[in-house]
């Protein structure tokens, strides 16, 4: 591994350049990114379907409650959007670990990536499942009676509040996956000089809160537009193939979450490149890599 010969060019970039470069990265590593992202997202897709898929079960809807079709669709889209917004970082853990290795290693083995992530699983569970509100979101939706009416308290108040908390936390502290999986800091330590996950998170994020907030707003808008465009694309494809332009419950049940997850995968790549950029700007990471590479070269020449 030659530290100053990275597979992704390490230099300062602005947000639009990072978004553009992410397309290149996706093209170059499309197979491992799809595989690792599926490994993260597929269980969540199944879980989400089990949690709220019944809302689009229109036969049962007719039998059990009196919501009209458009209200049922709105309810499902609302709950699913919030759920994916909360879960997206958890789905990206394998892809993040892969990209972290791919910067330096030529074709990292996916098996090694999975092994590394599983080693870090207690920290991931704490940081993502608990602190970032994923488990509470699941519990909330589990509390919604199946085939029951729209629960105003749970679905219109608590779930959006939880989503706001999770997204807000992610806007200001987006790089928790990178800190946990790539920097591998311990969760807690009695030694005050030890760089724990919390201390490192504060160290890397706190000087850039205003930048991160601005970028977060821009990315949120972009995510929304991309998700709509992607879903629209599925509607168009279906229209061309079966000559039916209506958004059917089937489309909402499968194509809508798929469109959202596809955008989430892309945003994950953007987030990883933003992490590299932040480290370059604030810590001179590219300079450190060069120095470490020089040190390695000097050592190999047995000074």
């Amino acid at each position: 591994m030659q530290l100053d010969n990275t597979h992704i060019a390490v230099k300062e970039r602005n947000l639009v350049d990072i978004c553009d470069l992410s397309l290149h990265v996706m093209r170059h590593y499309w197979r491992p990114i799809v595989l690792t992202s599926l490994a993260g997202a597929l269980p969540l897709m199944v879980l989400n379907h089990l949690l709220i898929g019944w809302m689009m079960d229109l036969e049962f809807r007719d039998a059990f409650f009196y919501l009209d079709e458009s209200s049922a669709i709105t309810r499902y889209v609302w709950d699913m959007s919030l759920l994916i917004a909360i879960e997206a970082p958890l789905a990206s853990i394998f892809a993040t670990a892969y990209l972290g290795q791919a910067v330096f290693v030529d074709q990292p083995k996916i098996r090694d990536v999975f092994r590394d992530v599983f080693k870090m699983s207690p920290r991931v569970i704490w940081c993502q499942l608990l602190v970032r509100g994923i488990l509470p979101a699941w519990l909330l939706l589990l509390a919604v009676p199946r085939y029951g009416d729209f629960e105003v308290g749970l679905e219109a108040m608590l779930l959006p509040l939880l989503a706001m908390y999770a997204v807000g936390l992610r806007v200001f502290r987006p790089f928790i996956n990178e800190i946990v999986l790539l920097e591998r800091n311990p969760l807690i330590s009695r030694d005050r000089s030890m760089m724990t996950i919390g201390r490192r998170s504060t160290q890397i994020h706190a000087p850039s809160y205003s930048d991160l907030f601005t970028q977060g707003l821009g990315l949120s808008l972009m995510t929304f537009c991309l998700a709509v465009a992607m879903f629209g694309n599925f509607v168009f494809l279906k229209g061309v193939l079966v000559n039916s332009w209506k958004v059917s419950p089937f489309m909402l049940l499968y194509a809508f979450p798929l469109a959202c997850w596809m955008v989430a995968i892309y945003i994950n790549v953007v987030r990883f490149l933003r992490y590299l950029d932040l480290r370059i700007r604030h810590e001179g990471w590219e300079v450190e890599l060069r120095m470490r590479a020089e040190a390695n070269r000097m050592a190999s020449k047995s000074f």
Partner: protein
Amino acid sequence: MSSEMTQIDSTVEVVTPENIAFHYQVAGPFRRLPAFLLDLLIRAAGFAVIALVISLVGGTIGVGGMSFAVLAIIWFLSDWFYGGICETMLNGQTPGKRTMGIRVLTVSGQPINGVQAVMRNFLRSVDMMPMLSLEVMGLAAPAYIVPTCILALVTMTLNRRYQRLGDIVSGTIVVVEERQWLTGVAKLEDSRAAQLANYIPADFVITRSMSRSLAGYVDRRRFFSTARRREVARHVAEPLIERFGFPPDTSYDLMLCALYYRAFVADRTDEEALDAANPFGPPAAVQPFQSSVPIPKS
């Protein structure tokens, strides 16, 4: 960064017919989007002004129906020819592109001609496909007017030069016009670096890659905290301090500055370079091995 392997980057090499290679940063979809939106705004504002004038004139002379037809023709022309005409007249730029600092070139780095400019703008309507009907959103009768631009996004993702279909057909690329300043030798504020450089053994050769690394370090060190400078410089400075037999408490940062001075100033015979880069004045009676900031070594 050294580039022994092909790195994933948005920079492409363009070789002109004169066999001169230029490196351009190509503009991707997200870099181009603000320019497109700005052009759209300019067109809409221009159209609103023209519509106002024509409506007033048409109303005054009593040809209201005619003015509607004129407006429809103007909208059609501006929609299809605004980009093509601007890019032909302004050497590959529209007002939006000029504001955002991007320019259209041919794939061989030449200015584009009128046909290329018009062609790539004609095909924009294809790149915006698939169009969505407002009906999908439950708003109105079928009218396919909402562009998703997914075709352009997919096409640009699939090629290294971020070319949409219009670019591929016309043989053009969109590049970022960024002026990069070539900086000279960095100024070192600590005169002890020059003194310490004199103690570096004469037979120590600073390699090309190390020179680049030192230049990168000295260029960026002013943005680092003292602790961070120490952390970054330690990798190279620590083994060298040991090798040269310098006192163990020698500042790592100072050590790298001394190496930089040795590589870029002391070893150069160019008088101008020496004048430009010797900011220290006469050596003061200071101890070169003294650490500038005493930090306990870990």
